[in-house]
């Protein structure tokens, strides 16, 4: 297992290098360069723009720029964000935890809600509940994340405050990770405040995928519960819920785990939009701004982090395979 993991991680190196090289050249092919953020500013003169271009090495040939980036990057130096004039390592340290918190929560929500609904639907196949849930799942699955986020804000963070008698529990903040009074709250107050801020964005980010997990779980469960060993278990008198939860669910989980690897990149790209809508100071917000400002070093570093997360997500899915299915062994 260990050697398998090592091998996989080694394979990831050329993969990451390839991705980053591609990103590097695509970014440089886009019109404009980082000095452009000074370009349309009436208070900045032309000499300043030229000086800044040469200071940032933007007048060097592309190959030279690529090489110097590669050397720095390989030695672990992400460099300085040109737009923020801060070390990129400090920016990442600020932002990564926020994104992990949001995507992590969404991921948990996706699988908890998705699997639970899928199981219920499979057990009660063709019932009214099944039909309603199927309809709801398709409806939610078809909503774009961005739009869903805005709708959630309009209903739960806007309308909810204007209607008297709206349950206090269903009023949410529209943006940010914590409220203004956060520092003055006690420990549980802080925890509650954070959860309160997390609910809408995590829901917006995760609910679409939860709907599809529910669909997958349903069909996978349906397949499994028709098999002979389930009938045997029932026949020897194992209680119904034990049959489902223990005997059937574990086997039905195999295809679902593949989804874990598939959803991680999806979550990260979705978080770009959700973070923007909910003013969530995470990686998505950073990468969008970096691209718009042509902040090359920051684009490279954020792309790197995203790529690494995707590689790890896939690896995680493969490892979980082995955990769930004893027949799978990695050597």
């Amino acid at each position: 297992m260990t050697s398998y993991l090592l091998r996989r991680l080694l394979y990831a190196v050329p993969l990451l290098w390839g991705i980053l090289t591609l990103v590097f050249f695509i970014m440089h092919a886009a019109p404009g360069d980082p000095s452009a953020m000074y370009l349309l500013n009436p208070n900045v003169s032309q000499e300043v723009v030229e000086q800044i271009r040469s200071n940032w090495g933007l007048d060097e040939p592309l190959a030279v720029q690529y090489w110097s980036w590669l050397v720095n990057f390989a030695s672990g130096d992400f460099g300085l964000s040109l737009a923020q004039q801060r070390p990129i390592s400090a920016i990442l340290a600020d932002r990564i935890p926020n994104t992990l918190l949001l995507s992590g929560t969404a991921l948990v929500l996706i699988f908890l809600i998705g699997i639970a609904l899928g199981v219920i639907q499979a057990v009660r196949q063709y019932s009214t509940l099944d039909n309603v849930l199927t309809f709801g799942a398709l409806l939610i699955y078809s909503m774009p994340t961005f739009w869903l986020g805005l709708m959630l804000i309009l209903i739960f963070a806007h309308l909810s405050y204007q209607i008297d008698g709206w349950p206090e529990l269903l009023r949410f903040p529209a943006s940010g990770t914590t409220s203004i009074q956060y520092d003055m709250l006690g420990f549980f107050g802080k925890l509650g405040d954070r959860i309160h801020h997390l609910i809408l964005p995590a829901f917006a980010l995760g609910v679409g995928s939860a709907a599809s997990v529910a669909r997958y779980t349903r069909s996978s469960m349906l397949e499994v519960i028709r098999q002979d060993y389930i009938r045997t278990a029932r026949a020897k008198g194992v209680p119904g819920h034990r049959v489902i939860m223990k005997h059937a669910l574990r086997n039905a989980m195999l295809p679902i785990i593949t989804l874990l690897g598939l959803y991680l990149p999806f979550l990260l790209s979705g978080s770009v939009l959700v973070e923007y809508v909910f003013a969530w100071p995470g990686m998505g917000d950073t990468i969008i701004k970096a691209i718009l400002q042509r902040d090359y070093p920051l684009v490279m570093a954020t792309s790197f982090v995203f790529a690494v997360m995707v590689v790890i997500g896939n690896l995680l899915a493969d490892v979980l395979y082995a955990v769930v299915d004893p027949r799978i062994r990695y050597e």
Partner: protein
Amino acid sequence: MRRALKLVALVACVTACIDAGDRSRENDDAPVPEELRFGGTAVVGFLAEASSMNEFASNDINSDELQSYVLFTTLVRYDEDLQLVPYLAESWETTSDGEQRTLTFHLRHAVKWHDGAPTTAYDVAFTFDRIKALGRLFPRAASFSNYDSAVVQDSFTVTFFLKPHPGFLDPWSFTSPMPQHILGDVPLAELQQDPFGSVSPVGNGPFRFVEHRPGDRWVFEATTDFPEALGGRPYVDRLVYRIIPEPTTMLAELMSGELDVYLGVAPSQVEQVESSPTARVLRYETRIYAFINWNARRPLFADPAVRRALTLGIDRERLVEAVRYGMGEVAYSPLPPYHWAHNSQLQPLPYDPDSARALLDAAGWVDSDGDGVRERDGDRASFELITNSNPVREDVLEIVASDLATVGVEVIPRVLEAQTLGATITGSDRDFDAFVLGWGPQFEQNDRRIFGCATPEGLFHWAGYCNPRVDELLDRVASLEDRAQALPLWFEYQEIIQRDQPYTFLYYETRAIGIKNRLRAVEMDVRGTLINVNDWWIEPGSRRQIAASRSP
């Protein structure tokens, strides 16, 4: 369903709202005693991050405003009539000796850095020396190009040597001294990246720095011993600057009361804020004007008569109504109305499609093949009008296109991402026909870089406009310190621009700010959004509580 909810909200509000509205009006008159105004947290929502509190590095308007009005103190300030008045500098005097001038500032003695050290002339000289040493790496280097050197006379007196030029005090209205005892040892090459900017700024202004969470918020706290002479301790205890990029989210936060101020309400949202019982809209004139730049290097735009025809063919009154919801005035001069030399005797060219057609006919642009678009010598009167992705400007493109179609000119609207637009219009080959953009100059305007003849061309010479008389006028106003002498020259300059129409000026932008009724005494004008942040106060009864109800 949503409609029904809205209706319920509306009905519920009709009674409550009238109530609240009346009360707030009464309160404006009923004085709240001075001592009860202190306290509370004011939260201001911005659409974009303030990049840094390090003046040597920052370049965005939000950082500038926080530096000048919140964290630091400038030497001088503009008052509401745009006259320079003392601020950190108690007084100043000048002496002149031909080509050399001295400017001596006497600083107030009582202003302290927030770590306790006094603010002295050494800080001013240090700041100036670093700006000079950074040279062109300092974004606003041009402001100090006529300044030569600084000498500290004593702890609170500093003298500058400079070449005489109009508006020589202006740079000190947006440049705050930085603390020498903190930044003095930082090597020049690291000055712009110093953690001072984002992690640990120390100021001397009405508010001290508490916390910065990048992309999320800046938190400031009132300086309790801020000198009375500079306005004294601010009324609010804390000032929080929150960054929320999406306008819909911003609106929701204002309505629910998480925000007290929403800076930059989108024109389409103004009505919603206005109809709210708990918030109001403050409108103020900004420095920004929107314009169409015609690329005079193209045959269609080379003739001033054609550019004039194009201006006459656009219904700018309607445009301001439609895209800005009336928030703006039809523009006609590169010096906006707030400018002391604004020529108000000029009138904007009217909307007059018949004259536009006649002018185009006379210039030889005639629709001979009957396809609705004019031609001349095989060139069609058809062009691409570009702008950056911004909902308001995209609407401008559509309206201009439909107006000009009626005078036989075809407009192909195209939206580009901002940096792509920037690269296209400033590129040396100037490969574009026309574009729409906004421009917000400083108070001391230098229009040579826009409308001057130039070889080689500068970045902003996008119009390709050249008129020797304009050059002469702009050169002379740049050296005339006596405004009475400069005024007729500025007037003539504006008349020529009006005649030649290198730009079609669209509108002077009025900005809308959403403010919670509980936050009082907020004023904003052409100088900016935080000009009287010291005087803001919050109604004692409606300050933020540490609300247990906010946790689920």
